Protein backbone atom coordinates (compact mmCIF):
# COMPACT_ATOMS: atom_id res chain seq x y z
CA UNK A 1 0.00 0.00 0.00
CA UNK A 2 2.82 2.31 0.99
CA UNK A 3 4.45 1.51 -2.32
CA UNK A 4 1.22 2.35 -4.18
CA UNK A 5 0.89 5.72 -2.43
CA UNK A 6 4.50 6.53 -3.10
CA UNK A 7 4.14 5.42 -6.75
CA UNK A 8 1.04 7.57 -7.26
CA UNK A 9 2.75 10.55 -5.67
CA UNK A 10 5.77 10.06 -7.95
CA UNK A 11 3.51 9.76 -11.03
CA UNK A 12 1.62 12.91 -10.06
CA UNK A 13 4.90 14.73 -9.46
CA UNK A 14 6.15 13.75 -12.93
CA UNK A 15 2.85 14.83 -14.48
CA UNK A 16 2.86 18.21 -12.68
CA UNK A 17 6.45 19.00 -13.65
CA UNK A 18 5.95 17.91 -17.25
CA UNK A 19 2.81 20.01 -17.76
CA UNK A 20 4.43 22.92 -15.89
CA UNK A 21 7.49 22.81 -18.15
CA UNK A 22 5.30 22.93 -21.24
CA UNK A 23 3.22 25.82 -19.91
CA UNK A 24 6.45 27.76 -19.32
CA UNK A 25 7.65 26.96 -22.83
CA UNK A 26 4.46 28.47 -24.29
CA UNK A 27 5.74 31.88 -23.21
CA UNK A 28 8.68 31.41 -25.59
CA UNK A 29 6.41 31.16 -28.63
CA UNK A 30 3.69 33.81 -28.20
CA UNK A 31 2.66 33.77 -31.89
CA UNK A 32 1.86 30.04 -31.69
CA UNK A 33 -0.09 30.52 -28.50
CA UNK A 34 -2.29 33.20 -30.03
CA UNK A 35 -2.79 31.31 -33.29
CA UNK A 36 -3.93 28.22 -31.38
CA UNK A 37 -6.06 30.16 -28.90
CA UNK A 38 -7.78 32.10 -31.70
CA UNK A 39 -8.38 28.95 -33.78
CA UNK A 40 -9.92 27.25 -30.72
CA UNK A 41 -12.17 30.25 -30.23
CA UNK A 42 -13.02 30.22 -33.89
CA UNK A 43 -14.45 26.71 -33.85
CA UNK A 44 -16.64 27.46 -30.85
CA UNK A 45 -17.86 30.71 -32.45
CA UNK A 46 -18.87 28.71 -35.53
CA UNK A 47 -20.66 26.17 -33.35
CA UNK A 48 -22.43 28.96 -31.48
CA UNK A 49 -23.38 30.55 -34.81
CA UNK A 50 -24.56 27.17 -36.11
CA UNK A 51 -26.95 26.71 -33.18
CA UNK A 52 -28.16 30.29 -33.38
CA UNK A 53 -28.82 29.97 -37.14
CA UNK A 54 -30.58 26.65 -36.61
CA UNK A 55 -32.81 28.05 -33.90
CA UNK A 56 -33.62 30.97 -36.16
CA UNK A 57 -35.40 28.37 -38.30
CA UNK A 58 -36.72 25.84 -35.73
CA UNK A 59 -37.99 26.22 -32.15
CA UNK A 60 -36.75 22.89 -30.77
CA UNK A 61 -34.50 19.99 -31.74
CA UNK A 62 -36.22 16.81 -30.59
CA UNK A 63 -37.77 18.71 -27.67
CA UNK A 64 -34.57 20.59 -26.71
CA UNK A 65 -34.85 24.38 -26.71
CA UNK A 66 -32.10 26.86 -27.61
CA UNK A 67 -30.79 27.33 -24.05
CA UNK A 68 -30.81 23.61 -23.28
CA UNK A 69 -28.85 23.02 -26.49
CA UNK A 70 -26.35 25.68 -25.36
CA UNK A 71 -25.94 23.79 -22.07
CA UNK A 72 -25.20 20.64 -24.06
CA UNK A 73 -22.78 22.36 -26.49
CA UNK A 74 -21.15 24.43 -23.72
CA UNK A 75 -20.66 21.41 -21.47
CA UNK A 76 -19.12 19.47 -24.34
CA UNK A 77 -16.78 22.34 -25.27
CA UNK A 78 -15.70 22.91 -21.67
CA UNK A 79 -15.06 19.24 -20.92
CA UNK A 80 -13.28 18.65 -24.23
CA UNK A 81 -11.03 21.68 -23.79
CA UNK A 82 -10.24 20.66 -20.18
CA UNK A 83 -9.21 17.25 -21.48
CA UNK A 84 -6.95 18.93 -24.04
CA UNK A 85 -5.44 21.04 -21.26
CA UNK A 86 -4.69 18.07 -19.03
CA UNK A 87 -4.04 15.13 -21.41
CA UNK A 88 -3.18 16.44 -24.89
CA UNK A 89 0.18 14.68 -25.12
CA UNK A 90 -1.60 11.38 -25.70
CA UNK A 91 -2.18 12.51 -29.31
CA UNK A 92 1.56 12.02 -29.94
CA UNK A 93 1.47 8.27 -29.17
CA UNK A 94 1.49 7.19 -32.85
CA UNK A 95 4.24 9.64 -33.76
CA UNK A 96 6.37 8.53 -30.79
CA UNK A 97 5.95 4.88 -31.79
CA UNK A 98 6.98 5.45 -35.42
CA UNK A 99 9.87 7.78 -34.59
CA UNK A 100 11.21 5.57 -31.80
CA UNK A 101 10.63 8.24 -29.17
CA UNK A 102 8.74 5.65 -27.12
CA UNK A 103 12.04 3.83 -26.45
CA UNK A 104 13.29 6.93 -24.69
CA UNK A 105 10.13 7.12 -22.52
CA UNK A 106 10.33 3.46 -21.55
CA UNK A 107 13.86 3.84 -20.20
CA UNK A 108 12.96 6.75 -17.93
CA UNK A 109 12.05 6.07 -14.25
CA UNK A 110 8.45 7.33 -14.56
CA UNK A 111 5.13 5.81 -15.75
CA UNK A 112 5.16 5.84 -19.57
CA UNK A 113 1.47 6.74 -19.84
CA UNK A 114 1.92 9.77 -17.58
CA UNK A 115 4.96 10.92 -19.57
CA UNK A 116 3.07 10.68 -22.86
CA UNK A 117 -0.20 12.26 -21.63
CA UNK A 118 1.61 15.23 -20.09
CA UNK A 119 3.95 15.78 -23.03
CA UNK A 120 2.18 18.95 -24.06
CA UNK A 121 -0.88 21.14 -23.61
CA UNK A 122 -3.41 21.84 -26.35
CA UNK A 123 -3.00 25.60 -26.62
CA UNK A 124 -6.35 25.89 -28.38
CA UNK A 125 -8.04 25.20 -25.03
CA UNK A 126 -7.66 28.77 -23.92
CA UNK A 127 -10.00 29.88 -26.69
CA UNK A 128 -12.23 26.81 -26.62
CA UNK A 129 -12.78 26.91 -22.88
CA UNK A 130 -13.61 30.62 -22.95
CA UNK A 131 -16.33 30.23 -25.56
CA UNK A 132 -17.47 26.94 -23.99
CA UNK A 133 -18.00 28.70 -20.67
CA UNK A 134 -19.80 31.57 -22.42
CA UNK A 135 -22.20 29.11 -24.11
CA UNK A 136 -22.64 27.18 -20.88
CA UNK A 137 -23.28 30.43 -18.96
CA UNK A 138 -25.89 31.71 -21.43
CA UNK A 139 -27.57 28.30 -21.62
CA UNK A 140 -27.41 27.80 -17.84
CA UNK A 141 -29.09 31.15 -17.14
CA UNK A 142 -31.61 30.84 -19.98
CA UNK A 143 -32.61 27.30 -19.00
CA UNK A 144 -33.25 28.51 -15.44
CA UNK A 145 -30.47 26.51 -13.75
CA UNK A 146 -29.45 28.14 -10.50
CA UNK A 147 -26.15 28.36 -8.65
CA UNK A 148 -27.22 25.30 -6.62
CA UNK A 149 -26.58 23.11 -9.67
CA UNK A 150 -22.94 24.29 -10.00
CA UNK A 151 -21.40 21.58 -7.71
CA UNK A 152 -23.28 18.89 -9.65
CA UNK A 153 -22.07 20.46 -12.90
CA UNK A 154 -18.45 20.45 -11.68
CA UNK A 155 -18.70 16.81 -10.57
CA UNK A 156 -20.14 15.80 -13.95
CA UNK A 157 -17.42 17.83 -15.70
CA UNK A 158 -14.72 15.93 -13.81
CA UNK A 159 -16.27 12.60 -14.80
CA UNK A 160 -16.51 13.79 -18.43
CA UNK A 161 -12.80 14.73 -18.48
CA UNK A 162 -11.80 11.27 -17.18
CA UNK A 163 -14.05 9.53 -19.74
CA UNK A 164 -12.74 11.60 -22.67
CA UNK A 165 -9.10 11.25 -21.60
CA UNK A 166 -9.58 7.48 -21.23
CA UNK A 167 -11.22 7.09 -24.62
CA UNK A 168 -8.48 9.16 -26.27
CA UNK A 169 -5.88 6.98 -24.55
CA UNK A 170 -7.50 3.79 -25.87
CA UNK A 171 -7.91 5.27 -29.36
CA UNK A 172 -4.32 6.53 -29.54
CA UNK A 173 -3.00 3.26 -28.10
CA UNK A 174 -4.47 1.54 -31.19
CA UNK A 175 -1.38 2.91 -33.00
CA UNK A 176 0.72 0.31 -31.16
CA UNK A 177 -0.88 -2.24 -33.50
CA UNK A 178 -1.65 -0.08 -36.59
CA UNK A 179 1.02 1.19 -38.95
CA UNK A 180 1.28 4.93 -39.53
CA UNK A 181 1.81 7.89 -37.27
CA UNK A 182 -1.67 9.37 -37.81
CA UNK A 183 -3.91 8.71 -34.81
CA UNK A 184 -6.81 7.86 -37.10
CA UNK A 185 -8.92 6.03 -34.49
CA UNK A 186 -8.56 8.99 -32.13
CA UNK A 187 -9.60 11.31 -34.97
CA UNK A 188 -12.65 9.12 -35.48
CA UNK A 189 -13.59 9.26 -31.78
CA UNK A 190 -13.20 13.04 -31.91
CA UNK A 191 -15.27 13.28 -35.07
CA UNK A 192 -17.90 11.00 -33.56
CA UNK A 193 -18.13 13.27 -30.57
CA UNK A 194 -18.11 16.51 -32.58
CA UNK A 195 -20.74 15.31 -35.04
CA UNK A 196 -23.06 13.29 -32.82
CA UNK A 197 -22.77 14.53 -29.28
CA UNK A 198 -23.57 18.18 -30.03
CA UNK A 199 -27.13 17.05 -30.70
CA UNK A 200 -29.58 15.23 -28.41
CA UNK A 201 -28.68 11.57 -28.77
CA UNK A 202 -32.36 10.71 -29.10
CA UNK A 203 -32.41 11.87 -32.72
CA UNK A 204 -30.17 8.93 -33.71
CA UNK A 205 -31.31 5.33 -34.33
CA UNK A 206 -31.41 3.03 -31.28
CA UNK A 207 -28.25 1.15 -32.32
CA UNK A 208 -26.21 4.38 -32.42
CA UNK A 209 -27.63 5.43 -29.03
CA UNK A 210 -26.65 2.10 -27.49
CA UNK A 211 -23.12 2.19 -28.95
CA UNK A 212 -22.50 5.77 -27.82
CA UNK A 213 -23.83 5.06 -24.33
CA UNK A 214 -22.58 1.59 -23.44
CA UNK A 215 -19.96 0.83 -26.13
CA UNK A 216 -18.00 4.07 -26.31
CA UNK A 217 -19.46 5.85 -23.27
CA UNK A 218 -19.30 9.29 -24.92
CA UNK A 219 -22.90 9.94 -23.83
CA UNK A 220 -21.75 10.04 -20.19
CA UNK A 221 -19.39 12.89 -21.07
CA UNK A 222 -22.01 15.26 -22.50
CA UNK A 223 -25.56 14.08 -23.22
CA UNK A 224 -26.25 12.32 -19.90
CA UNK A 225 -24.75 15.21 -17.83
CA UNK A 226 -26.79 17.75 -19.84
CA UNK A 227 -29.92 15.68 -19.23
CA UNK A 228 -29.20 15.47 -15.50
CA UNK A 229 -28.54 19.21 -15.27
CA UNK A 230 -31.69 20.16 -17.20
CA UNK A 231 -33.83 17.83 -15.07
CA UNK A 232 -34.61 15.31 -17.85
CA UNK A 233 -33.12 12.42 -15.89
CA UNK A 234 -33.70 11.39 -12.26
CA UNK A 235 -31.05 12.19 -9.65
CA UNK A 236 -30.00 8.54 -9.33
CA UNK A 237 -28.46 8.85 -12.80
CA UNK A 238 -25.70 10.81 -11.03
CA UNK A 239 -24.20 7.42 -10.20
CA UNK A 240 -23.71 6.51 -13.86
CA UNK A 241 -21.00 9.02 -14.99
CA UNK A 242 -18.50 8.14 -12.19
CA UNK A 243 -18.99 4.42 -12.87
CA UNK A 244 -18.43 5.01 -16.61
CA UNK A 245 -15.35 7.15 -15.79
CA UNK A 246 -13.82 4.50 -13.51
CA UNK A 247 -14.49 1.68 -15.99
CA UNK A 248 -13.10 3.58 -18.99
CA UNK A 249 -9.99 4.68 -17.04
CA UNK A 250 -9.29 1.06 -16.02
CA UNK A 251 -9.69 -0.14 -19.62
CA UNK A 252 -7.45 2.70 -20.88
CA UNK A 253 -4.61 1.80 -18.52
CA UNK A 254 -4.93 -1.88 -19.46
CA UNK A 255 -4.99 -1.21 -23.24
CA UNK A 256 -1.97 1.11 -23.04
CA UNK A 257 -0.04 -1.53 -21.06
CA UNK A 258 -0.95 -4.17 -23.64
CA UNK A 259 0.21 -1.76 -26.34
CA UNK A 260 3.57 -1.29 -24.63
CA UNK A 261 3.97 -5.08 -24.48
CA UNK A 262 3.22 -5.33 -28.21
CA UNK A 263 5.63 -2.45 -29.00
CA UNK A 264 8.79 -3.60 -30.71
CA UNK A 265 10.62 -0.32 -31.15
CA UNK A 266 10.81 2.01 -34.15
CA UNK A 267 9.92 0.76 -37.60
CA UNK A 268 7.66 -2.01 -36.17
Amino acid at each position, binding site marked *: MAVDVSGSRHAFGVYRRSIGAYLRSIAE*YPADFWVMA*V*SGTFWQIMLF*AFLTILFGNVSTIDGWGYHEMLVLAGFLATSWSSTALLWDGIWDTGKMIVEGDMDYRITRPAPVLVQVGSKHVGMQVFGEATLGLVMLGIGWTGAGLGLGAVPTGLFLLLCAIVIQASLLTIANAANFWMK*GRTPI*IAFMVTELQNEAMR*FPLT*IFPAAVRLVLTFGLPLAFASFVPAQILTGRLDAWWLLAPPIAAAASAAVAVWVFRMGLRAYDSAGH
Partner: protein
Amino acid sequence: MASVDLALATISFKRKIAYKTTWLFSVLFGGWSLLAGLAVWSNLIGDGEMGGYDWQAMKAYLIVGFLTSTLAWAGSDWEMANRILDGLVAVDLTKPVDFQRARAGEYIGGMAASVPAAILGTAAAVLIFRPAPPDSALAAVLTVVSVLFIFPLAFGITYLSVLTCFVTQRYLGIQWARDTMLAFFSGMMVPLALMPLWLQGVAWALPFVHFTTTPASIYLGRVDTAGALGLLAAEAAWAVGLWVIGRLIWSQLVKKVTVHGG
Protein backbone atom coordinates in the same frame (compact mmCIF):
# COMPACT_ATOMS: atom_id res chain seq x y z
CA MET B 1 1.57 18.84 -67.19
CA ALA B 2 5.33 18.33 -67.13
CA SER B 3 6.75 14.94 -66.21
CA VAL B 4 8.19 16.35 -62.99
CA ASP B 5 4.71 17.47 -61.84
CA LEU B 6 3.33 14.03 -62.64
CA ALA B 7 6.22 12.33 -60.83
CA LEU B 8 5.66 14.41 -57.69
CA ALA B 9 1.91 13.73 -57.82
CA THR B 10 2.56 9.99 -58.20
CA ILE B 11 4.94 9.90 -55.23
CA SER B 12 2.38 11.71 -53.09
CA PHE B 13 -0.38 9.36 -54.28
CA LYS B 14 1.69 6.28 -53.39
CA ARG B 15 2.64 7.73 -50.02
CA LYS B 16 -1.04 8.26 -49.18
CA ILE B 17 -2.08 4.73 -50.04
CA ALA B 18 0.98 3.11 -48.43
CA TYR B 19 -0.71 3.09 -45.02
CA LYS B 20 -3.81 1.13 -46.05
CA THR B 21 -5.44 0.92 -42.61
CA THR B 22 -5.13 4.65 -42.11
CA TRP B 23 -6.51 5.21 -45.60
CA LEU B 24 -9.49 2.92 -44.95
CA PHE B 25 -10.34 4.56 -41.66
CA SER B 26 -10.16 8.02 -43.22
CA VAL B 27 -12.97 6.94 -45.57
CA LEU B 28 -15.09 5.61 -42.72
CA PHE B 29 -14.51 8.94 -41.02
CA GLY B 30 -16.37 10.93 -43.70
CA GLY B 31 -19.06 8.26 -43.82
CA TRP B 32 -19.85 8.81 -40.17
CA SER B 33 -20.21 12.59 -40.68
CA LEU B 34 -22.66 11.88 -43.49
CA LEU B 35 -24.73 9.50 -41.36
CA ALA B 36 -24.80 11.96 -38.46
CA GLY B 37 -25.85 14.77 -40.82
CA LEU B 38 -28.63 12.62 -42.30
CA ALA B 39 -29.99 11.78 -38.82
CA VAL B 40 -29.96 15.42 -37.73
CA TRP B 41 -31.56 16.90 -40.83
CA SER B 42 -34.11 14.10 -41.09
CA ASN B 43 -35.25 15.03 -37.60
CA LEU B 44 -35.30 18.76 -38.37
CA ILE B 45 -37.00 18.64 -41.76
CA GLY B 46 -39.40 15.73 -41.30
CA ASP B 47 -42.12 15.99 -43.96
CA GLY B 48 -41.66 19.75 -44.40
CA GLU B 49 -38.81 21.83 -45.76
CA MET B 50 -36.16 24.24 -44.54
CA GLY B 51 -34.56 26.96 -46.63
CA GLY B 52 -36.14 25.47 -49.74
CA TYR B 53 -34.74 21.98 -49.06
CA ASP B 54 -37.17 19.11 -48.59
CA TRP B 55 -35.87 15.79 -47.28
CA GLN B 56 -34.97 14.41 -50.73
CA ALA B 57 -33.09 17.57 -51.67
CA MET B 58 -31.32 17.68 -48.29
CA LYS B 59 -30.13 14.10 -48.74
CA ALA B 60 -28.63 15.10 -52.10
CA TYR B 61 -27.07 18.21 -50.52
CA LEU B 62 -25.44 16.15 -47.75
CA ILE B 63 -24.14 13.52 -50.17
CA VAL B 64 -22.60 16.22 -52.39
CA GLY B 65 -21.05 17.66 -49.20
CA PHE B 66 -19.66 14.21 -48.32
CA LEU B 67 -18.08 13.86 -51.76
CA THR B 68 -16.51 17.31 -51.79
CA SER B 69 -15.27 17.19 -48.20
CA THR B 70 -13.70 13.74 -48.74
CA LEU B 71 -11.73 15.24 -51.63
CA ALA B 72 -10.99 18.59 -50.02
CA TRP B 73 -9.46 17.19 -46.84
CA ALA B 74 -7.35 14.52 -48.50
CA GLY B 75 -4.42 16.61 -49.72
CA SER B 76 -0.87 16.47 -48.37
CA ASP B 77 -1.01 19.67 -46.35
CA TRP B 78 1.08 18.44 -43.39
CA GLU B 79 3.92 17.36 -45.68
CA MET B 80 3.85 20.82 -47.24
CA ALA B 81 3.82 22.57 -43.84
CA ASN B 82 6.60 20.38 -42.47
CA ARG B 83 8.88 21.32 -45.37
CA ILE B 84 8.73 24.91 -44.15
CA LEU B 85 8.76 24.13 -40.40
CA ASP B 86 11.66 21.64 -40.67
CA GLY B 87 13.69 23.91 -42.95
CA LEU B 88 13.61 21.60 -46.00
CA VAL B 89 12.36 24.61 -47.92
CA ALA B 90 16.00 25.76 -47.98
CA VAL B 91 16.88 22.64 -49.98
CA ASP B 92 13.86 23.19 -52.24
CA LEU B 93 15.21 26.62 -53.13
CA THR B 94 18.29 24.99 -54.64
CA LYS B 95 16.24 22.70 -56.90
CA PRO B 96 15.36 23.62 -60.49
CA VAL B 97 11.65 23.13 -59.73
CA ASP B 98 9.21 25.88 -58.83
CA PHE B 99 8.21 25.45 -55.16
CA GLN B 100 4.52 26.24 -55.67
CA ARG B 101 4.19 23.96 -58.70
CA ALA B 102 5.98 21.12 -56.94
CA ARG B 103 3.71 21.41 -53.89
CA ALA B 104 0.65 21.61 -56.15
CA GLY B 105 1.70 18.35 -57.82
CA GLU B 106 2.16 16.64 -54.44
CA TYR B 107 -1.07 18.03 -53.02
CA ILE B 108 -3.22 17.03 -55.96
CA GLY B 109 -1.56 13.59 -55.99
CA GLY B 110 -2.64 13.19 -52.37
CA MET B 111 -6.17 14.29 -53.23
CA ALA B 112 -6.28 11.82 -56.12
CA ALA B 113 -5.64 8.98 -53.64
CA SER B 114 -9.03 9.74 -52.10
CA VAL B 115 -10.93 9.69 -55.42
CA PRO B 116 -11.75 5.94 -55.50
CA ALA B 117 -12.98 6.04 -51.91
CA ALA B 118 -14.97 9.23 -52.51
CA ILE B 119 -16.65 7.74 -55.59
CA LEU B 120 -17.40 4.40 -53.92
CA GLY B 121 -18.71 6.11 -50.78
CA THR B 122 -20.89 8.45 -52.83
CA ALA B 123 -22.25 5.60 -54.96
CA ALA B 124 -23.08 3.59 -51.83
CA ALA B 125 -24.78 6.60 -50.23
CA VAL B 126 -26.85 7.22 -53.38
CA LEU B 127 -27.94 3.57 -53.55
CA ILE B 128 -28.81 3.38 -49.86
CA PHE B 129 -30.44 6.77 -49.28
CA ARG B 130 -31.99 7.50 -52.70
CA PRO B 131 -31.52 11.30 -52.78
CA ALA B 132 -33.14 13.67 -55.26
CA PRO B 133 -31.72 13.12 -58.79
CA PRO B 134 -29.86 15.93 -60.60
CA ASP B 135 -32.12 18.63 -61.98
CA SER B 136 -31.12 17.72 -65.55
CA ALA B 137 -28.38 15.92 -67.48
CA LEU B 138 -26.69 19.28 -68.07
CA ALA B 139 -26.88 20.04 -64.34
CA ALA B 140 -25.18 16.69 -63.64
CA VAL B 141 -22.33 17.50 -66.06
CA LEU B 142 -21.87 21.00 -64.66
CA THR B 143 -21.88 19.57 -61.12
CA VAL B 144 -19.00 17.28 -62.07
CA VAL B 145 -17.10 20.27 -63.50
CA SER B 146 -17.71 22.28 -60.32
CA VAL B 147 -16.42 19.35 -58.22
CA LEU B 148 -13.27 19.16 -60.38
CA PHE B 149 -12.54 22.80 -59.56
CA ILE B 150 -12.20 21.73 -55.92
CA PHE B 151 -8.73 20.36 -56.75
CA PRO B 152 -7.09 23.73 -57.58
CA LEU B 153 -9.25 25.58 -55.03
CA ALA B 154 -8.30 23.23 -52.19
CA PHE B 155 -4.64 23.57 -53.11
CA GLY B 156 -4.86 27.36 -53.35
CA ILE B 157 -6.46 27.76 -49.92
CA THR B 158 -4.19 25.19 -48.29
CA TYR B 159 -1.05 26.69 -49.82
CA LEU B 160 -1.93 30.15 -48.48
CA SER B 161 -2.58 28.72 -45.01
CA VAL B 162 0.66 26.70 -45.08
CA LEU B 163 2.70 29.79 -45.97
CA THR B 164 1.91 31.14 -42.48
CA CYS B 165 4.33 28.47 -41.18
CA PHE B 166 7.08 30.94 -42.11
CA VAL B 167 5.99 33.05 -39.14
CA THR B 168 4.70 30.41 -36.67
CA GLN B 169 6.28 27.30 -35.13
CA ARG B 170 3.25 25.02 -35.49
CA TYR B 171 0.76 24.29 -38.24
CA LEU B 172 -2.07 22.69 -36.23
CA GLY B 173 -3.83 25.91 -35.22
CA ILE B 174 -3.69 27.25 -38.77
CA GLN B 175 -5.14 23.98 -40.07
CA TRP B 176 -8.01 24.11 -37.58
CA ALA B 177 -8.84 27.74 -38.35
CA ARG B 178 -8.88 26.97 -42.09
CA ASP B 179 -10.93 23.79 -41.73
CA THR B 180 -13.42 25.55 -39.46
CA MET B 181 -13.90 28.34 -42.01
CA LEU B 182 -14.28 25.77 -44.75
CA ALA B 183 -16.85 23.72 -42.81
CA PHE B 184 -18.92 26.78 -41.93
CA PHE B 185 -18.71 29.03 -44.99
CA SER B 186 -18.97 26.19 -47.50
CA GLY B 187 -22.38 25.34 -46.08
CA MET B 188 -21.27 21.88 -44.85
CA MET B 189 -22.38 22.64 -41.27
CA VAL B 190 -25.55 24.46 -42.20
CA PRO B 191 -26.84 25.41 -45.68
CA LEU B 192 -26.29 29.05 -46.60
CA ALA B 193 -30.02 29.41 -47.33
CA LEU B 194 -30.69 29.20 -43.58
CA MET B 195 -28.19 31.93 -42.71
CA PRO B 196 -29.15 35.61 -42.35
CA LEU B 197 -28.70 37.57 -45.58
CA TRP B 198 -25.61 39.49 -44.42
CA LEU B 199 -23.86 36.22 -43.53
CA GLN B 200 -24.81 34.74 -46.89
CA GLY B 201 -23.17 37.80 -48.48
CA VAL B 202 -19.97 37.18 -46.51
CA ALA B 203 -19.99 33.50 -47.49
CA TRP B 204 -20.47 34.24 -51.20
CA ALA B 205 -17.54 36.66 -51.08
CA LEU B 206 -15.18 33.86 -49.96
CA PRO B 207 -13.84 30.88 -51.93
CA PHE B 208 -15.08 28.30 -49.39
CA VAL B 209 -18.65 28.47 -50.68
CA HIS B 210 -17.61 26.59 -53.82
CA PHE B 211 -16.84 23.42 -51.84
CA THR B 212 -20.46 22.51 -51.07
CA THR B 213 -23.00 25.21 -51.88
CA THR B 214 -21.94 25.68 -55.51
CA PRO B 215 -21.97 22.00 -56.60
CA ALA B 216 -25.14 21.29 -54.58
CA SER B 217 -26.94 24.35 -56.01
CA ILE B 218 -26.07 23.33 -59.57
CA TYR B 219 -27.04 19.69 -58.94
CA LEU B 220 -30.43 20.58 -57.43
CA GLY B 221 -31.21 23.24 -60.03
CA ARG B 222 -31.31 26.03 -57.48
CA VAL B 223 -29.52 28.11 -60.13
CA ASP B 224 -30.36 28.09 -63.86
CA THR B 225 -27.78 27.26 -66.55
CA ALA B 226 -26.53 30.84 -66.80
CA GLY B 227 -26.21 30.96 -63.01
CA ALA B 228 -24.36 27.64 -63.00
CA LEU B 229 -21.92 28.89 -65.65
CA GLY B 230 -21.43 32.06 -63.61
CA LEU B 231 -20.57 29.97 -60.54
CA LEU B 232 -18.10 27.90 -62.56
CA ALA B 233 -16.51 31.15 -63.80
CA ALA B 234 -16.26 32.32 -60.18
CA GLU B 235 -14.54 29.04 -59.25
CA ALA B 236 -12.07 29.46 -62.13
CA ALA B 237 -11.39 33.05 -61.08
CA TRP B 238 -10.72 31.97 -57.48
CA ALA B 239 -8.42 29.16 -58.67
CA VAL B 240 -6.32 31.63 -60.68
CA GLY B 241 -6.55 34.36 -58.03
CA LEU B 242 -5.42 32.08 -55.20
CA TRP B 243 -2.49 30.89 -57.32
CA VAL B 244 -1.36 34.45 -58.01
CA ILE B 245 -1.85 35.55 -54.38
CA GLY B 246 0.14 32.51 -53.25
CA ARG B 247 2.99 33.47 -55.56
CA LEU B 248 3.02 37.09 -54.34
CA ILE B 249 3.01 36.09 -50.66
CA TRP B 250 5.72 33.46 -51.25
CA SER B 251 7.98 36.06 -52.84
CA GLN B 252 7.82 38.12 -49.64
CA LEU B 253 7.90 35.35 -47.04
CA VAL B 254 10.76 33.40 -48.61
CA LYS B 255 13.01 36.29 -47.59
CA LYS B 256 12.55 35.07 -43.99
CA VAL B 257 14.34 31.80 -44.71
CA THR B 258 17.67 31.61 -42.92
CA VAL B 259 20.03 28.85 -44.06
CA HIS B 260 22.13 27.80 -41.09
CA GLY B 261 25.78 28.30 -41.67
CA GLY B 262 25.13 30.36 -44.76
